[in-house]
């Protein structure tokens, strides 16, 4: 089995015994003036939910955040080291660091240690030169700048939705809605992923990062949009008994 091909198989193969997993749905979207990032809040150890209110949106610098998926320990360690290097870089240059520099630092660590790490990270932030920018760093340690990026085990279920719904040139509010909208009739990317992926769930946490600052948004579990929950069409009770007695239907 090529265990590098899907996120979930890789997670299971790489995580050590007892290690905590950020099986996840994360996403980041760029808009003119900043970025919107979002994540679910579930951390699992096998089928046990170790933390149902996790904050997977990690502050790296004043206007740069990262979304973490994969091994909780690996991503926390990498994020801490990148914070160290980026803060040093920022104070020596006297300016806010660029998102690209942060993403490059993540890439260096993720690629150099690719055999030991299980970390899928999305770096997003605002800087003076580029405005908002999003960088996807999947398992191998490649660096990909994209207008929007999704990651984690839950992301596989919403590629179609995101491809169909994303439009260039969305405003800040439209972008927030793309990620989480609970008012509009059409459902939202993260909520959809969370409803299909067993490793994702809980609450939705989001950050809107612009030049003026970082605004945190929160959608509690009971306010998540609900979609078609799926109902099996079963035969009516009377009919089932009749069929049974005729030997047509196996009793379950």
């Amino acid at each position, binding site marked *: 089995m090529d265990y590098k091909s899907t996120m979930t198989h890789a997670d299971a193969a790489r995580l050590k015994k007892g290690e905590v997993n950020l099986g996840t749905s994360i996403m980041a979207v760029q808009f003119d003036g900043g970025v919107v990032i979002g994540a679910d809040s579930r951390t699992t150890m096998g089928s046990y939910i170790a933390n149902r209110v996790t904050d997977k949106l990690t502050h790296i610098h004043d206007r740069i955040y990262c979304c973490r998926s994969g091994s909780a320990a690996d991503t926390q360690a990498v994020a801490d080291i990148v914070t*160290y290097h980026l803060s040093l870089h920022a*104070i020596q240059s006297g300016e806010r660091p660029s998102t690209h520099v942060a993403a490059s630092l993540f890439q260096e660590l993720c690629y150099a240690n690719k055999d030991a790490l299980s970390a899928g990270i999305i770096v997003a932030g605002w800087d003076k030169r580029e405005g908002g920018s999003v960088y996807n760093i999947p398992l191998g340690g490649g660096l990909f700048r994209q207008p929007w990026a999704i990651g984690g085990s839950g992301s596989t279920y919403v590629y179609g939705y995101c491809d169909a719904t994303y439009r260039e040139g969305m405003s800040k509010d439209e972008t927030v809605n793309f990620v989480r909208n609970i008012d509009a009739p059409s459902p939202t990317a993260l909520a959809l992923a969370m409803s299909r992926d067993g490793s994702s769930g809980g609450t939705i946490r989001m950050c809107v990062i612009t030049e003026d600052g970082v605004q945190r948004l929160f959608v509690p579990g009971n306010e998540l949009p609900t979609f078609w929950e799926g109902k099996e069409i079963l035969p009516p009770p009377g009919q089932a008994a009749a069929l049974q007695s005729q030997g047509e239907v196996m009793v379950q």
Partner: protein
Amino acid sequence: MSRSYDRALTVFSPDGHLFQVEYALEAVRKGTCAVGVRGKDTVILGVEKKSVLQLQDPRTVRKVVMLDDHVCLAFAGLTADGRVLIDKARIECQSHRLTVEDPVSVEYITRHIAGIQQRYTQSGGVRPFGVSTLIIGFDPHDAIPRLYMTEPSGIYTAWKANSIGRSSKTVREFLEKNYADDLDEAGAVKLTIKSLLEVVQTGAKNIEISVMRKDGEVKNLSLDEISEIVVEVEKEKEAEAERKRGRLAATLAAQGGMLESGAGATGA
């Protein structure tokens, strides 16, 4: 032969002095003046800016530097030595954050810098750093302003107000006479500028002021803001001088009067 470089450059004299350290202090005395003043909820760093040569880019000469978001440093003495110390201190600030998950306290980083300076007085083949530093800041989650000084010997001390570099003795004496506890921000800034004006003859354009507030915000005063305060200070000095002259004239007149009447009394 390499063995000759193993010998310490800093050795004791027969009467217990470390002459290299004392010579390092001499180097510090040649550097441009820096002043630190602690107020009630702010702490101020003022530095004398060396006149920039004609073709030099003034932006590249920075005497007040950030070590971390909440700690600032100014030094006097050999600029290159200062730069090396600052780099080491900056790395330590981040390293502390990574291992302990907390920003440094001002005392911790001062102790670290002083420790480096001391090490270079007790190692083979190296000379002491020719810098003294003034370190200001607020400890994390704390509203008390801090001011520390380190010296080439590796001694560090806490101060309410202090100065290092050129004419630091004059400035310190001025501060001793004029310092008051619990100064507000404006008062502390004014005191800093006043004390620097004692030694900086050329006025506002050669003074740089950094104000640190308890929320960690650092403000560098603009040339206009400094000029405004300098003008105010000069006016006060002028008024004081005027008053003195007036009093002197009155005293002389009174004395003159006394002499005449005295002569009259004792005379014929």
